[in-house]
């Protein structure tokens, strides 16, 4: 309160004005009320994207391509090193002194429909993103073959580096598999030895 001059000395600052270089009578920049904006202000708005049949088809092609690449063996997972060679593709790479020969044989065909609906394609692409997280390879077989193949495949992948509850994730549902049991198997085993009472 001692520092405030009231009506007399309005321009009081914590630093000496002359030392900084602001001479008397110079106009100061306006005081800042809020943080500076994150991006510079745009004087002209950009044009809208061209939208037509061709552009939509190109968009669908692009998203489908990206999704398909994620299920191919050339999409290398960081955890792939632990698995070694998978059972569905062989990629041998022999290097001699003067020539490199690599043979690449594929025994699976990847699942791809040209005539997807937009949204269904979109979720399939996400499907593959998440399957990559859960399993890593050979994920496209799940969609094709159905439940039986899936179960067989998961029994094959016994490396156990991704310790997940196999039972729970088998059908990609939220429910543990025992949720769907209807209790028929209960109590059918030990009917012979009736030593202990069944509560």
């Amino acid at each position, binding site marked *: 309160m001692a520092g405030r001059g009231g009506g007399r000395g309005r321009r009081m600052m914590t630093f000496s004005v002359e030392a900084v270089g602001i001479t008397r009578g110079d106009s100061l920049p306006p005081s800042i009320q809020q943080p500076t904006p994150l991006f510079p202000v745009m*004087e*002209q708005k*950009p*044009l809208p*994207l*061209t*939208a037509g049949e*061709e*552009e939509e*088809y*190109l*968009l669908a*092609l*692009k*998203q489908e*391509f*990206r999704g*398909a*690449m994620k299920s*191919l063996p*050339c*999409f*290398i*997972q*960081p955890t*792939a*090193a632990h698995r070694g060679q998978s059972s569905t593709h062989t*990629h041998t*790479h022999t*290097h001699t002194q*003067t*020539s*490199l*020969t*690599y043979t*690449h*044989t*594929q*025994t699976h*065909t990847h*699942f*791809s*429909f*040209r*005539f997807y609906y937009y*949204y269904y394609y*979109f*979720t399939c692409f*996400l*499907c593959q993103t*998440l399957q990559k997280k859960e399993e890593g390879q050979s994920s496209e077989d799940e969609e*094709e*073959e*159905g*439940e039986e193949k899936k179960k067989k495949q998961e029994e094959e992948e016994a490396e156990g580096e991704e310790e997940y509850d196999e039972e729970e994730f088998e*059908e*990609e*549902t*939220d429910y543990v598999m025992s949720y769907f049991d209807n209790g028929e198997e209960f109590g059918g085993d030990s009917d012979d030895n009736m030593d202990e009472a069944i509560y």
Partner: protein
Amino acid sequence: MTAQEVRLCGLLLREHFGEVVEKVGTHLLKGGAQNLRTIIHETGISLDLVKKSLCVLVQHGACVFRSGRKGAGSPTEYQTCCDRILRILRYPRYIYTAKTLYGDTGELIIEELLQRGHMTMSGTIKTVADRLTQNMEEGRSMDYSEVSSAFFRLVETHFLQRCPPLAGAEPKDSATPAAPSFPDCYKVPHVTLVGRGKRQLASEDGEDQRNAKKAKMDSQVGTHGDEGICWQVNFERFHLHFRDQAIISAVANKLDQTSSEIVRTMLRMSEVTTSPTATCTKPLSANEIFRSLPTSYNIPRPILDQYLTLLIDDPMEFVGKAGESGGGMYVVNMHRALANLARATLESVVQERFGSRSARIFRLLLRKRHLEQKQVEDFAMIPAKEAKDMLYTLLSQNLVQLQEIPKTPDYAPSRTFYLYTVNQLPTARMLLQNCYKTVANLVERRLFESKESKRLLEKSQRIEAILASLQASGAEPEQLTEVEEMITAPEKQQLEALRLHINKLDSAENQVDETIFLLESYINSTASTS
């Protein structure tokens, strides 16, 4: 390789090949040619993964290898260059072009080859036949011979080419993979391939099982006559096609449909006689053009001459006159057309960013080369204060350069001319780098948006999976609606908004790539002519 190119290549590699390949690829891009041990040591990735990543990169043509520079016996060195990886942005356009030219079969062939990098002819044909069969009705399947004929046509028109033979012994000087011009580049091997596509069904009937067994035996025997001959997509040929399309559509926009048909005819006639780096086509006489016009265009001969005169007089200089024999010899000026298209792109960029008056100043400087500030104000008919402001804004964005011409050796400001100028080629290069940065930003934003809503996306994907499995097992409608209601309405809205954003970002990437193509073609064409 500039920083922007490396960043964009890294993002493209991550999206299509995974993070391991991204690490190895960006390391090679930044570090030049390196041998395997250096790569392992500096990236810290295990030997197995590095080997696999290098395989993937070589398979897709992004990496070349050669024996070390230190002489015979030194370890193999691997080198990557940006160009091939940046082509990934253009894949949808290649596939779509194949569809318009060769139908669904051609489209799938190109798509398969783009996904796998290199593949043998028999492998491609089988996979494509299977995919086509998948989409056909029950009981029908695609014959291999149809797919083969589409493959032959693609090779004939040079859209596909053989992979260059592996000759990793001698070191090459050029950093980029040399364009394959070996003699057998477009020779189709004799392949014995008889059969039809297979349908992937969970319940197979007798015929499919027999076919499947036969296919297994075939693949075990493995002889189709073309082992070791791999094919790849010839990007340069697609680029020539895109360039022709750009010129034709520019003529159609500037003049009219008939003129564009004439130019299209001229380009078609000189497809095989013009080399890719030529600045203009071989001269064509007006008589030849008249004979080759499509019959649906009933243009009488004098009208054709008038159209050709119009094309020559047009300031864009698409068509030029090269002589008088044969009714007039005409050429299509490809280099000049590309330069004009690039110039139009630059002008449009300035107009959209800074307004039409700044664009007027920019066009003025492009036409008049060097102008003083006073002259700019006079010619552009803009008040002095605003003209000064706009000029300085353009100067600070590096779209306009300042040239000092001193009258005295001491460069005194009062005795020096300051001339503003625009150099088209360096400006085009700068805008090209801006385009790369734009696409990289778009990709990053898209990844960010997906990551933000990951939980919601996972939930919706689980719901879809439950719905699909319930439908497959034949559930009642009430169960289906019950499952559908597990996603609440605001979540549905959020998902819808997310889908819209991601589609917009993807579509924007495609469209920025069109600009990238124009600018790259112009820069390459200028570099090869000068």
